[in-house]
């Protein structure tokens, strides 16, 4: 095989044309790396096998509650383990923070641990690296407390010493015996977990009153061989419906459902839709890049027509051109693929920076065989495209010699192909920009959403823990009261209030109630947000009382049986009668010892606007009931400032430290920052997409410029003739601009179906923006038009400055 004999001249020529070669390798390499990186993450998340035996049969079992994954309640977990068919084992777990005691106070630290049922390790196929893992006995109520360490914790805290097993460790003040160590790399459910303790489920945990207590415990299970996920889901839901204390949850259709999902869904989270969009965007950029490279190849081949024609006249066969063109393209694309591989870790780092790389997934996300295969496949396709582009433009070479005197006709077919590529690029770019534009507009709309209160000049200060373990509730209540009073007295503070749950806060509390005038048969009690707020709460939030009155200080202190409800409540539960003065029954959970509490009768004294609770994009949420309480023990302090809220953050933190020195406050931050933070993920994705959009636009416009510049050079004689026929410079200029804009216009036209597809793809992520948003469409057309115009301007000016004498002389 004379591969090397063929390769040598190819390499020599590429070396001679280093600039061309470097351009191809660099552009293609970067575009490939971007595709490879995003694909690697998607593959890792969606398809890469998890490092657990029979991972394809591992599932999560959880309740979905208005779209929120609530995991399982302990009674439900127990019932499913007992009654559900199709499961070959189920295990519950809770991730939590605990205080680890050290020899000195300074060594004490808060670490993340997981409480797990012993069979969890069996399900995951884990074996101890030292000592043993849990047995059923460890999780029995009253058993001696045991703990299994993660490999890293073992190494860091105990230097990996063998005698670690059997030693005790102080967790939240209780001594736990270290019984074993998990192998290096074991992570579940998150990478940050340092140790595992048995999840002890006592009789009181299985009380009926706990059936609806979701949010702490999650469960994984293994399906029996051949079991169908949908069938198991059906069965699990049947078990849930039959569970005393949970039937109510199914009352409101569509709000509560059981789900059986693939285990990997635990780590996929919100990443996948965003990553899919990214993959699409980088794919489009790759297409635009490839089109540019084909363009470049055609231009180069056209420029060499003459030389090639001479070669042919000297007897070189067609196969020689094919070998040359293909050889060049494949050498370049192989180099580009190599560059892409080298850049991949960087791309992954970039994705990690934009938090698109899940850090907790147990499967390592990196450069896998499929990613490499994809890169090589894409590089190979690019090489083919470039080969065809350069060969195609060499067709009809026989006439090239004869045409030497007539440049304006030379390579016209090639020029047409290049224009076609430009049209395609513009179309792709337009689709990409429309998609991005819609997402940006959507974010704008979201930020401008009416949140139902005045978000400016407002500080959110989470109450956090108001003291250490030894502090009793009375002290905590006094501390909350002192905090509110001191905050009100701070300079620059206009109003302050406290609530057990506040908009965009950390806490959410739902209670069932019987609406005003409801038949007292208890058949259907809807849920509502149940917020306990002090007398200053609404003033601090800047929420006017729309009807009725606010709570008084005495009412708050005495926790009077009155309520303020929001408009959503009125709309749903008192649509045709004035809600003021009406009463309703608020149901209360059983006490800790299981004794039931009678419902509380509340009289509505005021109506306020509905506020956003968790996100700017929520629309159909629960109604809200506000009850007076002077000092709720959790929630947040809200402080309205006269100047920038940021100036109050440090003084408020000092205040917390002074009043609750042994506590730790929650987040203290300006409310508008906190609201903006709910969009952080959107913003990061938008930023990445915007970058890609700019790149695509730049590439497309560069291609447009190159093609027009080339066209102008080829048509110089024509411009000379036109001038001799009486055309003035301005007319020539306009002609070229029109040629460029025609390409842009055609591109936009061809882009219409692509734009339709793009809008479909982002439609689910849009908020307050129609998919065919006129502003976005016009904006994209304007941006593309303007930038394209700028790109056409230089060649057009060059055309207008053609000296007709010189142009015609050169013929």
């Amino acid at each position, binding site marked *: 095989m004379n591969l090397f004999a063929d390769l040598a001249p190819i390499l020599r020529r590429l070396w001679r044309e280093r600039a061309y070669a470097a351009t191809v390798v660099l552009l293609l390499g970067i575009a490939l790396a971007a595709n490879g990186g995003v694909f690697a993450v998607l593959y890792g998340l969606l398809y890469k096998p998890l490092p657990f035996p029979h991972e394809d049969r591992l599932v999560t079992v959880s309740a979905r509650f208005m779209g929120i994954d609530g995991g399982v309640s302990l009674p439900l977990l127990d019932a499913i383990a007992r009654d559900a068919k199709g499961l070959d084992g189920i295990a519950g777990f809770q991730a939590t923070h605990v205080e680890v005691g050290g020899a000195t106070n300074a060594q004490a630290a808060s670490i993340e641990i997981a409480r797990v049922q012993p069979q969890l390790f069996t399900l995951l196929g884990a074996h101890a690296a030292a000592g043993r893992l849990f047995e059923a006995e460890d999780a029995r109520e009253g058993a001696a407390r045991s703990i299994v360490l993660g490999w890293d914790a073992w190494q860091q805290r105990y230097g990996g010493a063998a005698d670690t097993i059997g030693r005790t460790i102080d967790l939240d003040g209780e001594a736990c015996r270290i019984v074993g160590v998990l192998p290096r790399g074991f992570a579940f459910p998150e990478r940050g977990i340092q140790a595992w303790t048995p999840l002890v489920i006592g009789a009181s945990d299985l009380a009926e009153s706990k059936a609806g207590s979701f949010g702490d415990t999650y469960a994984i299970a293994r399906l029996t061989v051949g079991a169908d996920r949908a069938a198991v889901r059906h069965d699990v839901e049947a078990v849930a419906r039959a569970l005393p204390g949970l039937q109510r949850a199914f009352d409101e259709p569509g709000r509560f459902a059981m789900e059986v999902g693939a285990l990997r869904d635990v780590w996929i989270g919100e990443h996948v839709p965003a990553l899919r969009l990214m993959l699409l965007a980088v794919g489009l950029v790759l297409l635009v890049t490839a089109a540019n490279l084909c363009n470049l190849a055609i231009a180069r081949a056209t420029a060499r027509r003459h030389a090639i024609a001479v070669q042919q006249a000297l007897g070189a066969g067609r196969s020689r051109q094919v070998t040359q063109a293909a050889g060049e393209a494949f050498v370049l694309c192989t180099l580009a693929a190599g560059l892409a591989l080298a850049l991949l870790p960087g791309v992954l780092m970039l994705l990690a920076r934009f938090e698109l790389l899940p850090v907790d997934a147990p499967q390592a996300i990196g450069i896998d065989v499929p990613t490499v295969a994809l890169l090589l496949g894409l590089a190979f396709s690019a090489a083919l495209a470039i080969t065809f582009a350069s060969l195609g433009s060499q067709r009809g070479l026989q006439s090239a010699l004869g045409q030497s*005197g*007539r440049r304006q*006709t030379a390579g016209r077919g090639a020029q047409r192909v290049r224009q076609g590529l430009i049209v395609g690029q513009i179309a792709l770019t337009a689709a990409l920009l429309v998609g991005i534009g819609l997402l940006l507009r959507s974010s704008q709309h979201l930020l401008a959403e009416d949140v139902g209160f005045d978000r400016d000049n407002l500080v959110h200060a989470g109450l956090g823990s108001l003291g250490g373990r030894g502090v009793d509730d009375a002290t905590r209540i006094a501390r909350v009261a002192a905090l509110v009073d001191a905050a009100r007295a701070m300079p620059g503070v206009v109003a302050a209030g406290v609530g057990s749950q506040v908009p965009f806060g950390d806490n959410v509390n739902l209670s069932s109630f019987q609406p005003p005038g409801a038949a007292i048969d208890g058949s259907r009690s809807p849920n509502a947000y149940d917020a306990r707020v002090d007398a200053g709460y609404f003033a601090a939030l800047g929420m006017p009382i729309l009807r009725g009155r606010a709570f008084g200080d005495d009412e708050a202190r005495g926790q009077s049986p009155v309520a303020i409800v929001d408009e959503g409540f009125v709309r749903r539960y008192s649509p045709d009668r004035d809600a003021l003065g009406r009463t309703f029954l608020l149901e209360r959970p059983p006490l800790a010892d299981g004794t039931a509490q009678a419902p509380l009768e509340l009289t509505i004294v005021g109506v306020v606007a509905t506020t956003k609770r968790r996100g700017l994009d929520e629309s159909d949420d629960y109604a809200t009931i506000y009850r007076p309480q002077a000092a709720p023990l959790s929630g947040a302090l809200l402080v309205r400032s006269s100047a920038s809220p940021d100036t109050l953050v440090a003084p408020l933190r000092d205040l917390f430290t002074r009043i609750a020195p042994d506590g730790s406050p929650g987040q203290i931050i300006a409310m508008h920052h906190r609201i903006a933070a709910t969009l952080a993920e959107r913003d990061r994705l938008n930023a990445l997409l915007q970058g890609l959009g700019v790149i695509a636009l730049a590439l497309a416009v560069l291609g447009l410029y190159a093609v027009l510049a080339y066209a102008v050079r080829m048509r110089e004689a*024509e411009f000379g*003739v036109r001038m*001799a*026929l009486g055309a*003035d410079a301005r007319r020539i200029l306009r002609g070229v601009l029109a040629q460029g804009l025609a390409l842009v216009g055609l591109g936009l036209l061809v882009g219409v179906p692509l734009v339709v597809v793009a809008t479909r793809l982002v439609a689910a992520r849009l908020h307050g923006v129609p998919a065919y948003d006129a502003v976005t469409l016009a904006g994209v057309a304007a941006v593309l038009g303007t930038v394209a115009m700028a790109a056409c301007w230089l060649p057009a000016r060059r055309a207008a400055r053609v000296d007709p004498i010189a142009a*015609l*002389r050169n013929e």
Partner: protein
Amino acid sequence: MITLENVEKSFPLAGGRSWVLRNVNLAIADGEFVSIMGPSGAGKSSLLNVLGLMDHDWQGGYSLDGTAVAPLNAKQRQALQRDKIGFIFQHYHLIDDLKVWENLDLPLQYRDVPAKERAAQVADLLDRFNIVGKKDLFPNQLSGGQQQLVAVARAVITKPRLLLADEPTGALHSTQARIIMDLLHELHRGGMTIVQVTHNEDYAAEAQRIVRLRDGWIEGT
């Protein structure tokens, strides 16, 4: 029609100037048919460019149909050119992307003639030149002779007083060249002033006068 007085043209060249036209004095009467001859590089095309107001980088005096050219600015010169001059080139220089009739239409467009009038004039000329059947063809679908025919038609559609032809038959076979020469005669008979550059002694002799150029000088003066 044309009066040239001491027209000189040169290019700066390393260490001096390269002369293209030297002390050219030439008078061409209205309605005259003149041939310019001379070896390659003698300055024939350059002279034609000066006459055709394509070139303004020269010294001397030139008056065209009573208008002194030197004091005109670019715009005025172009207006004068549009008004008075038509060009024919050796390589026809039809615009490949335009059909025959569109090529004819172009000079009228550049003179902002209303569309209706343009259509009428184009139809008229197609008829006169006997190329109605070719009007929807592209230049590369025509023979060289036919292309030059169209080029002549395009040059005269604006009814210029002066037709400048740079080797109009240079790329044609003799039969085709004959047709073009006959056409020039016909135009001349119609009152047009024609200056043609040619290498063919016979065709040159068909004109009323031959001017010979050598190294930028007009011979015999």
